[in-house]
């Protein structure tokens, strides 16, 4: 079911809240090295699907395969360590920590994060220096260098979105799952960031799955588009195919949402 080309395969995922079937048997997959977008009207279940895939909410049914492994039972932090890192539509920044600390937190393989290493800095100091340098680079890339020493709580909504992205980048994921990363971000910077992600895809083999409402962006950068409505996946295909599909036009593109 999962071949080497598929990094993520989601099968029959379901979750209801009371009577609301937020996700109702969603099945889709993401090709390794692709930029795939997840679209659909408000309330279609996109964010819930992200929560289920990344383990932030538990599914009523369905399976999640990541890089060949069934990760359906793993906790969220464990899935993230396996290389599946997400951002949140409603940003979650560490308010009383600096922007730099927010970024540094996400770096993997820091032995100093183990309790028994805290009193032996020689085991983690050099890694810490690396992490700091990387974090500064990432902050530069997302345009937050100036803010490095400020509390994250002082950032604007758009800046918080950027910091979420920065944190995800610091984790050096194989699959980056972005929930409306461009919302509230100025379009020029947004485009630059997409180019940056594209570059990471070539350099590191990064795969991107992102939720986005801006159809120009979606059609412009995606290799594939997954369309959700009412908790189900309506179709998954190339953008030019999706754009012309009568059901998609009916359910989303021609609808009142855009």
């Amino acid at each position, binding site marked *: 079911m999962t071949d080497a080309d598929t990094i993520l395969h989601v099968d029959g995922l379901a979750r209801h809240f009371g009577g609301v079937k937020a996700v109702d048997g969603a099945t889709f997959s993401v090709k390794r090295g692709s930029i795939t977008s997840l679209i659909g009207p408000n309330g279609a279940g996109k964010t819930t699907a992200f929560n289920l895939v*990344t383990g*932030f909410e538990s599914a009523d049914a369905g399976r999640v395969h990541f890089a060949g492994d069934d990760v359906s039972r793993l906790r969220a*932090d464990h899935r993230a360590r396996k290389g599946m890192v997400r951002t949140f539509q409603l940003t*979650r920044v*560490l308010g009383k920590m600096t922007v730099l600390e927010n970024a540094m937190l996400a770096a993997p393989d820091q032995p100093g994060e183990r309790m028994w290493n805290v*009193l032996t800095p020689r085991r983690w100091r050099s890694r810490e220096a690396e992490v700091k340098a990387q974090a500064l680079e990432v902050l530069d890339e997302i345009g937050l260098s100036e803010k490095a020493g400020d509390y994250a709580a002082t950032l604007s909504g758009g800046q918080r979105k950027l910091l979420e992205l920065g944190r995800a980048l610091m984790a050096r994921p194989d699959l980056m799952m972005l929930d409306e990363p461009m919302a509230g971000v100025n379009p020029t910077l947004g485009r630059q960031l997409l180019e940056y992600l594209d570059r990471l895809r070539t350099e590191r083999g990064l795969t991107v799955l992102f939720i986005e409402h801006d159809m120009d962006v979606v059609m412009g950068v995606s290799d594939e588009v997954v369309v959700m409505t009412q908790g189900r996946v309506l179709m998954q295909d190339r953008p030019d195919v999706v754009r012309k599909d009568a059901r998609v036009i009916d359910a989303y593109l021609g609808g009142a949402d855009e």
Partner: protein
Amino acid sequence: MGPLLAFGFWAYVLTVAGIYAIFVLGLQVHVGDTGLLNFGHVAFMAAGAYSTGLMVTNGVPLLAAIPLAMLVAALLGVLVGLPTLRLRGDYFAIVTIAAGEILRIMIQNQQGATGGTLGLRKASGGWPSFNRDILRWFEDTLGIELERRVPLLVITWLVALVIALLLVRIGRSPWRRALRAVRENEDAVAAAGKPVFQLKLQALALGAAIAGVSGVLFTLLQTSLYPENFEPIVTFVGFAILILGGIGSYFGVVLGSILISFIISGVRFLDFPLAADKVAALRFVVIGLIIMAVMAFRPQGLFGKKEELHLD
């Protein structure tokens, strides 16, 4: 007003202050560093105290009993944490109060082992005779006649200092950064691939072990242990110290402990036309007033960071 002048009395008060300082340094790890609202902190002190007492009354040498007592307190932290740390913060807070009370009532009911309400006597084992040796050595070799409470006073504050310095050192580590991140937003930490649950469990165990140390010193000070020494009010005095000193500041903890201990002891010198038990109750009124005053006039506490107060 005799006691006002008695050095021994103030040495006692300062020792209690040092014990509180250690107790609250542990609480700071939970509340200030990790955001764990632990309302049952006194349980870890009780665990340290009673395990010391039970070991030494059963023939374990004091020096061996002390690290074991810390371990017992840390294990109690893990035991309380395993089922509760996955709960939302406010549920955790409620469960910790209950856990503290359960431990105290268990101690009270295990009369055969703990002496119950009659107390556990000679809980400090070889300490009193060791203390006499120290005093005699000072008198014989240095010609200094020490007040009998001074050695423990000095030891207590040395221990407090060492723990505070260790915490400051730990404070610069990526581990503590991860703890603070847990305090700020658990989802963000999990999304960054950090094991939130383990981090909380580790913080709980560390803070509990520190509280266990305060229990050991308390045992040396009192020599007899009673369940009523470990009522929930001890935790709340701890919170008063934390709030007064400033959440997040280790130095604030030290100063807050001294201030609150002197206030608690000082109230007894106020000349009120009240029965003794009412004067005792008055202490808690005073502590309540202090917490309210701090909240109103200096909500960040004496050494907290004001600029963090309005951030979220």
